[in-house]
Each structure stands twice: as structure tokens, then as C-alpha cells.
């Protein structure tokens, strides 16, 4: 892409005594929306806090927007926004006043802060309720207010820690759409964490998977979901029919395994992969056996597979 990475880490490590929160993490994050996936305790929040300069790494280096996290963390905090995972809003202040104050704490002048706060609160979808004390907000409204304070100073990069936490399905969809807009329409790089893979599949351009403080994988979302070359075939009937088809296909040189009601066929050898010859073969075999073909589709991977692979590797 030619752009320097927004975030780049090299051998980043953080140990709390015997607890290894992050181990030798080397990864680059570019523009757009990047998802940071991992189970609770995988090191997502630790990574964000290190990048913000709030935690000192035990080892390794990192740069955020071209600034070194140890020497220039103040410069970094000027350019980034942070939406923490936990509750962090004083209940006796209105969202409007609070976001204005936070804008000023990021160095915006009085009038600019008011203007930006009104703008950003409108973008996150807090309307009349912005003038009410935040103590009375629903979880969804609190999440929006938290997002607004992270965006109010027009950062170049925002860290969103579990922005969909505690939201109902509709609010979750809204929030994810907003996250996507921040990355595309607003032109702000986003690092968003979640423990739900499905969510990040929808919105991110790039996914980084952490597991127990280790980097499991980092690649474009498209690559995660790319076709694997495998095929899924389903025939009318029960497992008996499924197995008959599988055995017949195996005799023709294909590697088959049952998956639910379907037969999963591993990528065929090159001579069969050419021009869809394998599709014809499957059709013919099914016809010979007198089985009704119900489904023949390419097998796509899911983000979950990365975890399964990772688990198998360890």
C-alpha cells in the first residue's frame, strides 16, 4: 500500500510476575478497521494499554503513527482516541458537557471543543439525551457517549475495546456499522477488539488473532474467509446415503470425510481441479448411485477455524 503502518510492534512482551499477558508480539496494523480477536485474557486490553503508554512493556518495541511508545507516548496520546471496555463515565455530568471537557483535555480550544462535541455526538447517535446526566443512560447510550469522547478530538487512530459489550442485537448491529463508518467514511484507523469472531468478520479489513498472549495469526479478513478449494456435497437421504456417496468418491481418488449431513471433499488433485472436472465427477457418481444431489458448494473457512488450527498446533 506504500503507507507506513499505523501500528507496528516488534517482540512486544508483557509479563505480570508469572502471568504472561503478551509474549513476543510482532505485528503490523494498517489503515482501515483492524479487528483484534481473542478470548478474555488473551492480551487485547494489555496491548492497547501498552500502545497508549499507560503500561510499560517488559520487552520489545512498538511504534504508533510513527512515534515510539516509550519516548513519545505523549505525542501518541495526542493523536489517538481510546474507548475503554469498562464503565468510565461520571454519572452526574451530561454527555454534552463531558465530551466538551474531554475535547479540551485533548487540546481543543473552547469553541472548537463545543462544535466538535456536538458534531460527534450527532454522528454516534446521541440526540436530546445528550443534555441529561449520564447516570441515567442505558448501556447502549453509555457506549455511544464513550465512543464520542474517543472521537471528539478527531484522532488519526482509535482503540475501541469491546465496543459491543453488553449491547442487545439491534444496538450491536448499529455499533458495528458505526465502527465500519469510522474506518471508511471518517478516515480514522480503527483497532477494535472483540471476543466474538463473527462480529469482526463483518466490519474489519484485517484481523489479528491473539491467544494466551501469543499471535495466532494476522491477515486480511478476506484471506481468512477465502475459499479453501474444498467442496461440500449433500445428497437426499440419511447418513447411509451420505456414506455411500463418500465411499464411491473415495474410490475415484478423492479424499472425503463426513461433516454433519454433508460430505466434505478435500481439494482435488490437479487433473480433476481443472475446469470443474471434479464437479462433473461428483454429478456422475451421484447419478450412478441413484442419489439425489441437494447441494454442491465451495467450502469457506470461518475465523473460528483459525482457533481450531491454532489449538491443534499447540
Amino acid at each position, binding site marked *: 500500500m506504500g503507507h507506513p503502518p499505523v501500528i507496528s510492534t516488534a517482540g512486544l512482551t508483557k509479563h505480570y510476575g508469572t502471568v504472561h499477558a503478551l509474549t513476543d508480539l510482532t505485528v503490523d496494523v494498517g489503515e482501515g478497521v483492524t479487528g483484534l480477536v481473542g478470548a478474555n485474557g488473551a492480551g487485547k486490553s494489555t496491548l492497547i494499554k501498552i500502545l497508549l503508554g499507560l503500561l510499560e512493556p517488559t520487552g520489545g518495541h512498538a511504534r504508533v503513527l510513527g512515534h515510539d511508545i516509550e519516548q513519545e507516548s505523549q505525542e501518541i496520546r495526542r493523536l489517538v482516541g481510546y474507548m475503554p471496555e469498562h*464503565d*468510565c463515565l*461520571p454519572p452526574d455530568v451530561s454527555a454534552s458537557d463531558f465530551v466538551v471537557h474531554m475535547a479540551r*483535555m485533548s487540546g481543543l*480550544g473552547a469553541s472548537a471543543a463545543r462544535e466538535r462535541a456536538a*458534531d460527534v455526538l450527532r454522528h454516534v447517535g446521541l440526540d436530546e439525551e445528550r443534555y441529561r446526566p449520564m447516570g441515567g443512560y442505558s448501556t447502549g447510550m453509555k457506549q455511544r457517549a464513550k465512543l464520542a469522547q474517543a472521537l471528539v478530538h478527531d484522532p488519526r487512530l482509535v482503540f475501541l475495546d469491546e465496543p459491543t459489550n453488553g449491547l442487545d442485537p439491534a444496538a450491536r448491529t448499529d455499533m458495528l456499522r458505526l465502527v465500519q463508518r469510522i474506518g471508511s467514511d471518517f478516515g480514522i484507523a480503527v483497532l477494535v477488539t472483540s471476543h466474538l469472531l463473527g462480529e469482526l468478520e463483518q466490519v474489519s479489513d484485517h484481523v489479528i488473532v491473539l491467544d494466551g498472549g501469543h499471535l495466532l495469526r494476522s491477515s486480511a479478513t478476506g484471506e481468512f474467509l477465502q475459499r479453501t478449494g474444498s467442496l461440500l456435497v449433500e445428497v437426499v437421504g440419511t447418513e447411509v446415503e451420505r456414506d455411500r456417496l463418500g465411499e464411491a468418491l473415495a474410490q475415484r481418488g478423492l479424499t472425503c470425510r463426513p461433516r454433519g449431513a454433508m460430505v466434505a471433499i478435500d481439494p482435488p488433485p490437479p487433473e480433476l481441479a481443472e475446469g470443474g472436472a471434479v464437479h462433473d465427477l461428483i454429478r456422475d457418481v451421484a447419478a450412478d448411485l441413484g442419489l439425489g444431489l441437494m447441494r454442491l458448494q465451495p467450502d469457506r473457512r470461518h475465523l473460528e477455524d483459525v482457533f481450531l488450527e491454532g489449538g491443534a498446533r499447540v
Partner: protein
Amino acid sequence: MSDLTPDSGRPGVIHDLGYRHFDGVREGTPAIARNLFVTGLRHAYGLGRSGKSKVMPFLLLAMSLLPATIVVGVVVLTGLGELPVSYADYTNQTQLLVSLFAASQAPVLFSRDLRHRSIVLYLARPLAAPVFALVRWLSLTLAILLFTAIPTVVLFAGAMLSGLDKSDQTTSVLKAIALQVLLAMMVAGVSGLISSVSLRRGFAVVGSVMALIVLTGIVTVMQNIAYYEGDNESVSVGVGLLSPWSLYNGLANAWDAGVDTPVPVNGAWVPAYAIVAVLLAAACLLGLVARFRKVGSR
């Protein structure tokens, strides 16, 4: 009603301009710190907060001003040759109000951000934890200084109106203000540190009351007992090192600022009092910095 249908060509329609970037000037760290300082000072007096939160600070301020205005009235009307109470002693006499002000307002500056965890939002911004703690402490110090200095200034104005000797009065008012600065630094440190550790407002207030009012009461009683019952005067002076108020009174006594202590503070006790006072303020400030640094990394 066709004229109510949306029409993009009609004037007066609000268009969604989409997201707009901010390309204006961004202030540097000193300006942000100044802004936090002013906000903190205003919040200490309930300004910019709910109407309810203005009651306590202004009620206490009015109560500490009332005697001063009465004194001024009496001095101006009767033409007394001197103020019935010295500037430094007036602060000492109203110490209960000053301590209550500090105890009730320190949680506003030191507990709220920690209890609601909004401290994380501050620390994710340019100001670092030590600077944040320092600025908060400065806000409370100035708030307490104003609380003690306003009645002092009223007294001074009264003294000037009644034609008392200008140079004498100026000297003693400046001494009183200097002592008040030291006092404010200590009281802000003690009450701030207590509030930053005990996050429930009630506990913070009670803790500060214990440290500032109850402890001072005990110290005063012990000073008097040591003076009247014991034969060793240095015990009485030595005990005075234990509370901000007895340090203030001792230094005022040593500096001839018109405050009586059971035993006069003199000789080597004077630098001891001064050093302990400065160390107390510094230790509290360091404690605050350590506390905020620790919270920021969680």
C-alpha cells in the same frame, strides 16, 4: 400537503455534511494543564457543577467570612487602635471551617475520577499521570488558599478603612498569606491523598475530618497537658509537629504573626517546624503521584 414533502432544492433544509475533520490549532500540554487547573478550581467551589454542589463550599465560605465582617464593622465604627484578632490567628480560629471545606471538596477533585474510572480517559490523553496529580493538587491548594485568604483580605480592608498603620498591617497580612500558602499545601495534600485512596465520598470526608480536625484536637490537648502537667516544654513543642494546624500555629508563633501556642516555638524548633511542614506537603504530593500512576496502569 405536497409542500411538506422533502425537497432537496428547497432552502432551509439541513444537509448531513458527513464527518468533518478538525484542522484547527491544538493546544500544547501547558495549556491543557492550565485548563484542567481552572476546571478543578471551579469544581472545588461547585462552579460548573450542579446547583446542589455549590451549597456546601459557599455556606462554609460565608460562615468563615461572617466573623471577619463583624470585626471590620466593629473596628471601623469604634475606631479601635488595632484589630482584635491577628490575620494569622483568624485563620487558626476558623480552622474547623477550613478543614471542613478541604474534607468536603477534596473528594470532588480526587475521588470522582478514580471511582468512576474516568481517570483512564484523562490518562489516555496528553497529560501524564504525575502531571494530572500535580494539577489536581494545585487546584485544591489554591481553592483552600482562597478560602483562607478572602476573610484575611476583608480584615485587611477593614484595617485600612479604619486608618490603622499601613506598613504594620501590610507586613502582618503578608506573613499571614505566606503561612496560609504553606497551610493550604499541607491540607490539600493530606485531604487529597485520603480522598484518592478511599473512593467512597463518605469515607473520604470522614478520613479527612479525622486527620485534620480530630488529630489537631488531640495534638492541642496533648500540647496543653505537656505544658501544664509536665516540666519538659520541648515535649509540648515536639507534639506540635504532628498536625498541619499545629505546624501552622507554631510557625506563626515563631514568626511573630500573632498566634499563641502553649509553649513558644523558638530556637532549633523553628527550622524543624518549617522542614516538617514542607516535607509533609511534598510527601502527600508524591503519594498522590504514585497513586495516580498506579491507577493509570490498570
